C-alpha cells in the first residue's frame, strides 16, 4: 500500500486537475488546473522510474552498481521546461484578454460564439 502511494496521488491530482479545467469559470483557475495535471504526469513518470535502493547513474565513486535508469528524470526535466513555456504563454494570453475584455470569467469571454 505504501509503495502505491505515489500512484494514488497521481490519480487524485489528475481528477483535481480535470475537475478544475472543466468546472472552474475563472481563466486563471483553469490554467492552474492545467498545471496540476502536468504535475500529475510528471509524478507518474518519476514514480515509474523509482527503484528502492537505487543510486544515481554516476560511475565515479559510486557506492553500489545498483543504479536507476536516468531516462525518466530526463523526460520529466524536458516536460517541466515545456510546462513552464506553456504556462508563460497561457498567462500572457490571459493578461491580454483581461486588458481587452476587462474580465477573466470564461462565461463572459464569448465574442467568438455565434
Amino acid at each position, binding site marked *: 500500500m505504501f509503495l502505491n502511494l505515489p500512484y494514488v496521488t497521481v490519480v487524485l491530482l489528475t481528477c483535481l486537475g480535470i475537475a478544475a479545467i472543466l468546472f472552474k469559470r475563472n481563466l486563471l483557475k483553469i490554467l492552474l488546473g492545467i498545471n496540476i495535471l502536468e504535475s500529475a504526469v510528471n509524478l*507518474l513518470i518519476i514514480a515509474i522510474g523509482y527503484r528502492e535502493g537505487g543510486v544515481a547513474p554516476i560511475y565515479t565513486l559510486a557506492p553500489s552498481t545498483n543504479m536507476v535508469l536516468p531516462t525518466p528524470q530526463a523526460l520529466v526535466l524536458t516536460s517541466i521546461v515545456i510546462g513552464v513555456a506553456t504556462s508563460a504563454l497561457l498567462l500572457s*494570453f490571459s493578461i491580454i484578454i483581461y486588458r481587452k475584455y476587462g474580465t477573466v470569467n470564461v462565461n463572459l469571454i464569448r*465574442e467568438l460564439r455565434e
Partner: protein
Amino acid sequence: MISDFIWANSPILLVAIPLIGAFICPLIGKVSTDVRRAWVMGIVTLTTAIAAIVVYRVYTEGIVTYVFGAAASGMTVPMDSGGIPIRIIFTIDPMGALMEIITAVVGFSVIFYSLSADARRSGLEQYYTLFLLLIASVMGMVSTGDLFNFFVFIEISSMACAGLIAYRIERGRAVEAAIKYFIISTVAAIFLLFAIAILYGEYNALNIAMIASRMQFTPLDKVALVLIVVALLAKCGAVPMHFWTPDSYGLAPSAVTAMLVVASQASLYGLFRFVFTMYNLTFTAGMMGWTLIIIGVLSMVIGVTMAIPQKDVKRLMAFHAVSQTGYMLLGVGVGLAVLGNASLMDQFGRMAMEGGIFHIINHAMYKGLLFLTAGAIIYRVGTRDLNKLGGLGHQMKWTMVFFIIGALAIAGVPPLNGFASKLMIYESVYLFNPLLSIIAMVVSILTLASFVKVFHSIFMGPQRPEFSEVKEAPRPMLIAMGILAFVVILFGLIPVQVVSTLISPAAHALIDRAGYIAAVLGGV
C-alpha cells in the same frame, strides 16, 4: 564532401535548418527588412531542398533511419546495449515522406505569400521566428521514430501555432481564439504524455518500433491507446473537439491558416502512425476502425451543416476543413476496420486507405489555396463578411480563377485532385457499407452548394461603388496561389501515377508493421 555530409545528415538538417533559421531571424531582422526577407526565403528554400533529398532517399533506399549521436547514422542498435535502441532515432518511411512533401510545398508557398501579404505589419521578426519554428516542428513530428520526441515536437507546434493565431490581436478576439486552441492542445499533449508514461512503464522503451515489437495488448495498452486517440483527434479538429477550428482558422492571418491545416494533418499522421504501427492488428482493430469511421462521418456531416449558415468567409472555410478531415478518417478507418481480413483488404480496404491518405495531400493543397485566396480578398478589400462583399470578379480575375479551382477541388468535381481521392473513397467505402458512401456523397454535394453561394456572393454581380478602388492581389501572392493551384490541377490530371508512386507506398508503409520494426531493430 559537403554533399556527402548533407546526404547522410539530411533527416536532421530538415529540422535543424528551420530551427536555427528561426532563432537567428530576430537578429538578422535588426539589419534591415530586405535582409530579413531574403533570410526567411533562403531558409525555407533550403528546407524544401533538403526535404526533396530526404524524400528521394526514402523512395530509393526504403525506410531511412537517422540515429542521433551514433558513429554511423544507420547504427540503430548500439553493440553493447543488449538489442535496445537507446538513442533518439528519426525513422522516415514513405508515409512520413508524403507528409514532408506536403509541409515543404505548403510551407514554401505560404512563406512566399506572407512576405508580400504581411509586409505592412509590425513585429515581423517574431512572426517569422514562430513561422519557421512551426515548419521545423511539423517536419519533426512526421520524421521522428521516438514517442517522447513526438510529444516535444507536438508541444512546439502548439506553441508556435498559438502565438501565430494571436499575432493580430484584433481587439482581443484573436487572443481568445488562441487561448481556446492552446488550452485544448495543452491538455491533449498532457494526455499524450500520460500515454507515453504508461507505455514506457510497461515496455521500458520510447522507440515506436521497439514498443511495437514488444506490444502485448494488455488492458493498460488499451488505456494508452484511448488517451493517444483522444489527444490526437482533438489536435486535428475532429468533431467532438472541433470547436477551436473555426475560431483559430478564422482569426489567424491567412498564410498561417494554410500552415495550421498542415499542422493539424501532422497530428492526423501521428494518429495513423500510432494506431497502425504500434497497435496494428489487435483484437480492437475492428472497434478502433469503427470509432474512426463514426467520428469521421460525424465530422463530415456536422462540419458541412455548420458551414452553410456562416457569413464570415474564413470561418466558413474552417468548418469545411472539419468536414474534409472526416473523409480522411472515414477512408483510413475503413482500412483499419478490415485490417485483419486479407481478402476484404485486397478487395477494398487498401483502396480506402489510399483514398484517405491521398485526401490528406489533396486537402492540404486545395484548402491552403482557398485560405490564400480568402486572404488576398481580405488584404485588398478589408472585410470578410459575405454580405458586404460582391462584384469582385471584375477586378480580381486571377484570384477568382484560383478560388474556382480550389472550390471545385474541395467539392470533388473532375478533373481536379479532390475528385480523384473522393472517388477512391466512395468506391471502396461503398463495398464496405453503402450507407457511409452515400453520406459522403451527400456531404460533397452540400460542400459544392456552399461554395457556389460563397463564389456568387464574393465575385458575381455588378461592380460595387465602394470597391471601385480595389486592385488585383500583388504578384507574389498570386505566384504562391499559382503553385498550389498547379499541384491541385496536376494531381487531378494524373491521379493514377500519383497514387502508384506516392500514395500506395505510404499506405503500404502504414500496414506493413514488420517492415517498420525491421528497419529499426534490424530484422527481428
